């Protein structure tokens, strides 16, 4: 996953002109293959090595996991194709510019802050993944499945060293890392396949015909989750696969990517990322964890480094380090860009370095990585309401006689209808999770409709009070 933010990581994929405040012109549009390659590459990330095992730790059965992932990933692909891409290919604007036109500059700054903080924690999880590979060589005590705090000096030093190295590289040489990431992707995909093949053989699968039987009785046996984990059913798996990139599709962050697509059906290209990264890679990683549990049922630690080393030796370790490093870097870089929009006078170098240090400290705490299933769901929930705001503004407002791109039309820096929608929907979703008996993995579905209804009602009230169009006409009158 997010891998979410390796979006446009590849240097050769970044258009020379960014068209940050104008629609992408026809001459800059890209073909289907660009998107297939981009999504195929960006969803093979260090975090896949955490997520796969966490499904197993959550007691997902073979049917629930395999069919749930197939359905959830299909829903994610359809969300990109029918929700994100149609708006992107019509407006051809970046998410930030489109949001600025609807919500105003100050509200977008708040959005940037939320986005940047979430990016930092996500990068921290990737630092954690890479640091587990260092532990294989230095043999210090590493965090367990339910650890929230660092549990040894060796771990602290390792995570900080890895994190600071990533921070410095992100600040100095982002393009170099982007190039390494592009080169590494085809190799990493095959190493993930090898993880699965080797794991299956070691679990006693001798032919393809044995697979499903072993899947049900040896690998994903279902039953109770491991201590401290939430039980995952078919619907948990489906919703997780659908919503783990919610910020990107329903949350509309990938408007910035698909504004370059010639046709909206290019949203289907996301299938390359979903079915390589969020199907094959998750299954392979969970097979490695199943092998670990079979060899030593008491060893429930989710440590990608040791798991990969047992299966593929030093090449496996390299894969863990590169997968974590190459995805943490663009994440830190993009978090830095989000923060820099808030403090534009501070140099990008300093902001990126500070962001990287924050991510390094976050990576020292295993809480985010070990609770990654919940964190990813939270990430989607926080950014989802803005997707509903954009969706309504684009498709519904004109038909109801409401002003589209209200902030731009009214010249306001903060669209209170959009801001209140965001805060209220988050408040309601949080209440539903804490007191309403709705788990965080599901809450974003009703949350989207709550945000959409709220934005519609609040905009009717707000726009009637301010009536920007009439005011604009009055201002223009001599």
């Amino acid at each position, binding site marked *: 996953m997010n891998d979410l933010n390796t979006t446009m990581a590849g240097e050769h994929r970044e258009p020379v002109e960014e068209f940050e405040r104008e629609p992408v012109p026809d001459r800059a549009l890209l073909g289907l293959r660009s998107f297939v390659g981009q999504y195929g590459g960006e969803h093979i990330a260090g975090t896949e090595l955490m997520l796969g095992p966490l499904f197993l730790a959550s007691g997902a059965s073979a049917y629930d996991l395999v069919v749930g992932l197939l359905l959830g990933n299909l829903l994610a692909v359809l969300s990109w194709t029918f929700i994100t891409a149609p708006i992107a290919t019509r407006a051809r604007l970046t998410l930030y510019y489109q949001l600025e036109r609807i919500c105003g500059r100050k509200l977008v700054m708040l959005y940037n802050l939320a986005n940047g903080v979430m990016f930092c924690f996500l990068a921290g999880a990737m630092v954690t993944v890479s640091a587990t590979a260092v532990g294989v060589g230095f043999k210090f005590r590493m965090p367990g499945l339910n650890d929230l705090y660092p549990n040894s000096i060796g771990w602290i030093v390792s995570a900080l060293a890895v994190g600071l190295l990533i921070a410095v590289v992100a600040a100095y040489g982002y393009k170099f890392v982007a190039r390494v990431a592009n080169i590494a992707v085809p190799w990493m995909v095959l190493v993930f396949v*090898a993880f699965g093949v080797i794991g299956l053989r070691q679990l006693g699968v001798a032919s393809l015909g044995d697979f499903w039987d072993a899947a049900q009785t040896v690998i994903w046996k279902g039953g109770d989750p491991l201590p401290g984990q939430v039980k995952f059913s078919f619907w948990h798996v489906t919703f997780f696969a659908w919503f783990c990139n919610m910020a990107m599709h329903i949350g509309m962050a990938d408007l910035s990517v698909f504004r370059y697509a010639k046709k909206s059906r290019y949203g289907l290209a996301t299938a390359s990322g979903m079915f390589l990264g969020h199907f094959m890679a998750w299954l392979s990683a969970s097979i490695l964890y199943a092998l670990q549990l079979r060899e030593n049922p008491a060893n429930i630690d989710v440590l990608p480094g040791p798991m990969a080393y047992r299966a593929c030796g030093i090449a*496996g370790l390299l894969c863990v380090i590169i997968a974590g490093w190459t995805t943490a870097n663009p994440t830190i870089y993009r978090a830095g860009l989000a923060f820099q929009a808030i403090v534009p006078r501070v140099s990008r170098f300093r902001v990126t370095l500070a962001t990287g240090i924050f991510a390094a400290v976050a990576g020292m705490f295993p809480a985010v990585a070990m609770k990654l299933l919940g964190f990813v769901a939270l990430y989607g929930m926080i950014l989802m309401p803005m997707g509903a705001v954009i969706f309504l503004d684009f498709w519904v407002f004109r038909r109801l006689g409401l002003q589209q791109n209200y902030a731009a039309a009214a010249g306001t820096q903060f669209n209170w209808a959009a801001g209140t929608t965001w805060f209220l929907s988050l408040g309601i979703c949080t209440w539903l999770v804490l007191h309403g008996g709705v788990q965080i993995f599901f809450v974003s579905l009703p949350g989207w409709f709550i945000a959409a209804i709220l934005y519609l009602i609040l905009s009717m009230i707000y726009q009637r009070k301010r009536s920007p169009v009439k005011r604009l006409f009055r201002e223009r009158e001599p």
Partner: protein
Amino acid sequence: MKKIAQTLSALALAATLVPSLLFFADLLALAQVKVWMLVAALLWFVSAPLCMERKTTQ
């Protein structure tokens, strides 16, 4: 030069995956798989930049 790099990178990718398949078929020991995969990784990261760089500049 470009063709050599392309051939080597294709071989590297094959050497990344094929040993695991041979292990699956009981034709190669795991220790050997690990050695082949390491050699393949080194070969890939030496050869792939040469042909992938060319592609991006053309």
